[in-house]
C-alpha cells in the first residue's frame, strides 16, 4: 500500500467502508460520499477509502463517475477482512494488527461512515464518526430483520463511543433521540451537519436536455442489461424495458431500498389503489424485486397484489441514469417516514424538475416549516392518501414542483459548506488526542474502577476498585504523548496474584515503537512489582504487559469459586519526569 501524500498540510483522512458492496449504486452511502467529495474544492484533503476486497470494483466504478479533478483526491485501498467485514468485534488477527499499525502511521484521522465499526477499536488515530441514525431507536419493536443484529450493532456502537472523538449527524432529531438519549453520548461531541441542497444534473456532470433525451439514455443503458434481475424475471422484463417508452408513460419513481423500515409496501398498496382508478400509471423502484426465490416482504407484496408488471425494478443505476429516471418521472415518492436527515431524494427529484412526496416523519418536519409541509408530506400509514396525493401531484406537477423548488432553495447550507465543516472537524480532531485515551501528563493514573486511561484497553478482566487483572497472556493499554512533550518515565505498578506465594511469576513489558523488552518477576517474596520505563515516544503509544503464565485463584484455594485465569494485575501508572537513563531493566 502506498499513499499518495503530497505536502504536509494535506489532511489525510481515512474512511472505512465496511461490508461487501458489489455495486457502486446500490446504497445511499455512495451518494453521500459523492456529495462529500463534490464539496471539496481544493487539494487540502486526501481521502483514503478503505474497503473490503469484494468492494473494490464497486468503488473504482464509483470513483470513475467523479470529475477527474476530484478523483485525484480519493484513494481506494483494500483493508483486511477482519477490519472491513467483521466490524462488530475487534478480533483482528496478527496481520490485521500490523496492517492497522502501518496504516495508522500514514493517516491523520479516521472518518467512519457509521458508528458501530468496532474493528477499529484499537486504532491509534482519532476518530470522527458519521452517525446517520440508529433505526432501532426509531422503531424499537416493529421490525425483526434476520439479517441485521441490533444487539451486535448496539454493543459495537457503545464500545466505539469510548474511542470516537466526535460524531456527525444530519438532524437534531437524531442527535437528541438516538445519539444522546439512546447511547448517552455527550452533546458536546455531536455536530449536526444537515444535508445541503444540490442540483442533481450538475452533480452527474452530464447534461440531460429533456425527457426524450433522458429516456433515450435510459434505454441505451438498459441494453447493457446491468440491472439485477432473476433469470425468470429477466425473460419477461429485460428486453421489454430496453424498448420501454419511459418518456411517454406516467410513472412514479421510488428510489429506495426495500428494508422493512423503509415502508416500501405502502407503495404496493397505493399502486393497487391507483389501479382501481384505471389510471395508466406505473411505478419504478430501485430496490431489487424477486418474484420467485424467497421474496422479501416488498417483493411478496408486489406478487400477491399481481403488480409485478406495474411495479418495475431497475437496480444499481449509475448516477447519470438515476438522474435520467428523475427527469422522466411524473412524481417521486419517498415512503420512509424516518431518515437520519432530510432525504437526498428530495434534492435529486426537485432539481430534476419532478415533484416529490415524502412520508411525514420527525426529521422531515424538522426541516420544513408548517406551511410548507402540505406540499411535501403524506401520512405514511395511509395508502389511500398516498394514492390521492400521487394523482394530485401528477395533475398539478408544474405548480407543485415550482413551490417545492422555492422551499428547497431556502435551505441554508451548501455542499461546499458541509464538506468544509466536516473536514475542518476532522482536522481539529486530528490535531488532538484520540478520544478515550489519557494524555500522558505528569501524575498518577489509576487503572481500577472508573479509570479513563484507555477505554479501548484490551486483554483485561473487568476493572476492580484497586485495578485490573490481565485476562490473557498479552494485555495492553494506550497512552497519548503530545509530540511537544519531554521524555518521561513510566512507573507501572503491577500485582502478582496474591495466592501464589509459593511460586514466582515472570513477565515482560514492551512499548510500541521501542524495541526493548522489559522483563520482571515477582511472587515468591513479594506480590507486587513496579517497573520503570523511560519513554520518549509521541502520539498514541501501546504498552503491552506479557504474563508468561496465567493462574486461577481456585488452583491454590479450594474454597475459591473464582475460575478466572489471571495474568499480572495493573494497579496504576505514574508518569514522572525522566530521572536517569538506567532505570530500565536489562533486555
Amino acid at each position, binding site marked *: 500500500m502506498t499513499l499518495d501524500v503530497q505536502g504536509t498540510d494535506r489532511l489525510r483522512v481515512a474512511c472505512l467502508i465496511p461490508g461487501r458492496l458489489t455495486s457502486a449504486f446500490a446504497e445511499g452511502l455512495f451518494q453521500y460520499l459523492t456529495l462529500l467529495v463534490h464539496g471539496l474544492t481544493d487539494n487540502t484533503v486526501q481521502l483514503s477509502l478503505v474497503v473490503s476486497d469484494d468492494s473494490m470494483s464497486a468503488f473504482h466504478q464509483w470513483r470513475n463517475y467523479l470529475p477527474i479533478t476530484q478523483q485525484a483526491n480519493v484513494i481506494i485501498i483494500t483493508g483486511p477482512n477482519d477490519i472491513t467485514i467483521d466490524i462488530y468485534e475487534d478480533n483482528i488477527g496478527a496481520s490485521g494488527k500490523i496492517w492497522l499499525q502501518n496504516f495508522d502511521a500514514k493517516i491523520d484521522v479516521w472518518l467512519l461512515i457509521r458508528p458501530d465499526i468496532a474493528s477499529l477499536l484499537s486504532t491509534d488515530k482519532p476518530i470522527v464518526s458519521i452517525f446517520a441514525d440508529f433505526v432501532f431507536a426509531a422503531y424499537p419493536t416493529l421490525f425483526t430483520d434476520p439479517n441485521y443484529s441490533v444487539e451486535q450493532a448496539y454493543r459495537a456502537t457503545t464500545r466505539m463511543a469510548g474511542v470516537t472523538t466526535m460524531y456527525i449527524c444530519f438532524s437534531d432529531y437524531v442527535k437528541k433521540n438516538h445519539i444522546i438519549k439512546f447511547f448517552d453520548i455527550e452533546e458536546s461531541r455531536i455536530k449536526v451537519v444537515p444535508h445541503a441542497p444540490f442540483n442533481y444534473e450538475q452533480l452527474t456532470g452530464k447534461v440531460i436536455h429533456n425527457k426524450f433525451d433522458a429516456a433515450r439514455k435510459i434505454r441505451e443503458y438498459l441494453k447493457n442489461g446491468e440491472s439485477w434481475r432473476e433469470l*425468470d424475471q429477466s425473460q419477461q422484463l429485460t428486453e421489454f424495458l430496453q424498448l420501454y417508452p419511459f418518456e411517454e408513460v406516467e410513472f412514479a419513481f421510488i428510489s429506495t431500498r426495500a428494508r422493512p423500515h423503509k415502508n416500501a409496501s405502502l407503495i404496493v398498496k397505493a399502486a393497487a389503489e391507483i389501479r382501481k382508478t384505471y389510471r395508466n400509471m406505473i411505478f419504478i423502484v430501485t430496490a431489487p424485486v424477486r418474484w420467485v426465490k424467497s421474496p422479501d416482504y416488498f417483493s411478496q407484496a408486489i406478487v400477491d397484489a399481481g403488480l409485478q408488471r406495474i411495479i418495475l425494478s431497475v437496480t444499481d443505476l449509475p448516477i447519470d441514469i438515476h438522474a435520467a429516471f428523475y427527469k422522466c418521472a411524473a412524481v417521486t415518492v419517498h415512503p420512509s417516514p424516518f431518515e437520519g436527515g432530510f432525504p437526498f431524494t428530495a434534492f435529486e427529484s426537485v432539481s430534476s424538475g419532478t415533484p416529490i412526496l415524502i412520508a411525514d416523519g420527525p426529521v422531515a418536519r424538522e426541516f420544513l416549516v408548517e406551511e410548507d409541509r402540505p406540499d411535501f408530506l403524506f401520512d405514511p400509514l395511509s395508502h389511500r392518501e398516498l394514492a390521492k396525493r400521487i394523482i394530485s401531484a401528477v395533475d398539478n406537477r408544474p405548480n407543485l414542483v415550482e413551490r417545492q423548488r422555492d422551499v428547497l432553495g431556502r435551505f441554508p447550507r451548501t455542499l461546499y459548506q458541509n464538506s468544509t465543516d466536516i473536514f475542518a472537524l476532522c482536522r481539529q480532531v486530528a490535531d488532538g488526542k484520540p478520544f478515550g485515551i489519557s494524555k500522558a501528563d505528569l501524575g498518577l493514573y489509576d487503572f481500577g474502577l472508573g479509570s479513563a486511561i484507555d477505554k479501548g484497553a484490551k486483554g483485561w478482566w473487568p476493572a476492580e476498585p484497586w485495578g485490573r487483572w490481565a485476562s490473557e497472556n498479552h494485555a495492553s493499554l494506550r497512552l497519548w504523548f503530545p509530540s511537544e512533550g519531554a521524555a518521561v518515565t513510566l512507573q507501572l505498578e503491577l500485582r502478582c496474584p496474591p495466592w501464589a506465594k509459593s511460586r514466582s511469576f515472570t513477565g515482560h513489558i514492551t512499548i510500541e515503537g521501542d524495541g526493548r523488552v522489559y522483563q520482571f518477576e515477582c511472587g515468591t517474596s513479594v506480590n507486587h512489582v513496579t517497573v520503570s520505563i523511560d519513554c520518549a515516544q509521541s502520539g498514541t503509544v501501546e504498552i503491552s504487559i506479557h504474563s508468561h503464565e496465567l493462574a486461577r485463584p481456585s488452583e491454590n484455594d479450594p474454597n475459591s469459586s473464582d475460575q478466572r485465569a489471571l495474568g499480572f494485575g495493573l494497579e496504576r501508572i505514574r508518569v514522572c519526569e525522566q530521572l536517569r537513563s538506567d532505570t530500565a531493566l536489562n533486555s
Partner: protein
Amino acid sequence: MRCAVIMPHHWAGGMLNFGILLCNAMASMKISSESVKVSFCVPEGYDVSRIVNLSDKVNLVLFRQVQWDAEEYNYKTFASLKPEPYSVSTYMTYPEALNNALDIILADVWILMTGLFSKGPIMPLKPYIVYAPDFIQRVVPEIYGPDPVSPSWVMDAWQSIAMQRSQGIFVTSKQTGRDAISYAGVSASKIHLLPMANVPFFKSKVIDSDYIRLKSERIKKSLSQRMDLTSMSGEKIKELSENNDQKNLMRNLIKQKVPFFLWVTNITQHKNHERALEALERYYRDEGGRVKCVMCGPNTQWFNKESIYPYVNTVYKKISESEQLRKNLIIVGELEISEYQIALQDAAFLWHNVLYDNGTFSVIEAARLGTRSLVSKYPQMMEIVENFEINCETFDPWDPIDASNSLKRMEHLVANGEVGASAKISDEELSIFSERLQLLIEMAAMNNK
C-alpha cells in the same frame, strides 16, 4: 399485396367475428391499384365449421406455432437468413403454415389478432401489426393466476415484446391504447385507434316506443302489486336447480311476467362475480330488492355446482351459502341467440358488472331492444356509452355497496316506468375502420424489405 391475418388461438365468438370482419374488410381493399390477397390463418385443429360469412376471396390456412430455429427455417423455406439474435428473449416463435401452404411466408404483412403466442415473441420475419383487444390483466391480474412466472404471464410479457417490435398496434378504444403504451410498453406513435366496428347482434331489430311503454307498464304493475315472489322462487328454484333446469325457471319468469334483470357474464374473474354477489345479497337482504336476477353466458351453469376450478367453486359456495341468492338468482348458462334476445328484450334492465375489458356491446344490443342498462364504470365502457350515446345508469364495480344501491335505484326507475333505452349506431364506422386499417397495412408494407 398479400396479407396474412393470424389468429393463434382456438377462439370463437367475438374474436372470431372480428377476425372475419378484418379479412373481409381487407379482401375488398385495393392498395396501389392492386387487390389485397388475404389469408385467414387459424391454429392447427381449429373447428373451421365455426367460420361463417368469410369472403370467398379469403384463403383459409391452418398453421402451428413453431419455436424459432434459423437453420430449420432456412431448410424448410429455402430462405438464407442468418441466425441473428433478433431478441434477447430465450425463445422466439413463428407461425408455420400446414399443408405446404406458402401464404404466411409470402405475405407482405402479417396482421396478428393478438400478440399472445405460446412459444416466445413472434419472430419479425415480416412487418406485422397487432390487434390489442384489451389488457384485462393490467387491472385484474387474477385472470393469469398468482404465479408471476406461469406460462400465462410469460406469454403476456412476450406479447409486450412482440407489440414493441411491431410496425403498429391497433385498438378500438382510447383506454386500451393507453394500456398499450404504459403496460405493453409500446410507443404512442405506433398506436392506432380504429372505430368500434364490431357489428352488434340484432342490428336490424329496433323496438318501437309502444313496446317500451307496454313493457314499462307491465313491470310497474308487477312491482306495485307486491306480488308474492317466493312462490316462484325459494324451494322452486332449489328444486329446479337440482334438476338442472334453471332455463325453464327463466322461461316461467318470462311467461308469468315476473320482473327480472339479466346479468350477462362468463366465468372469468374480471367479470367481478364475488363483488357482484355481495352486492346482490345486500340488494335482496338489506334493500328489500324485488327484481330477480337471471345470470346467463358461456359456462355460467358451472356456478350451479361444485367445481374443480377454484374460482368457480368460490362463486358456487358463495351462492349456495346464501339464502337470498338461492332464492333470487337464477343461473341459466349460455342461451341460444333467439332465447337470449327474448330474455334481453323482456328484462327489466341489463346488469353489466365487469371490472375491466374493452367494453361490451351487449349494452348496445339491450338499448336497441329497448332495455336500459346498469353499467359498471370503467374507461372503455364509458367510451362505448359516449360513442353510441347510450342512456344508461352507472356504478363503481369495486364497491359492492354502490352496486347494491344502484340496483335498488334501478328498481325504482323501472317501477316508475323509466325503462326506455336508446343507442345511436352509425354505418360509417365500418368504412372508417377499413380506411384506417388500409393505411396501417400500407405503412407496414413499406417496411417489408
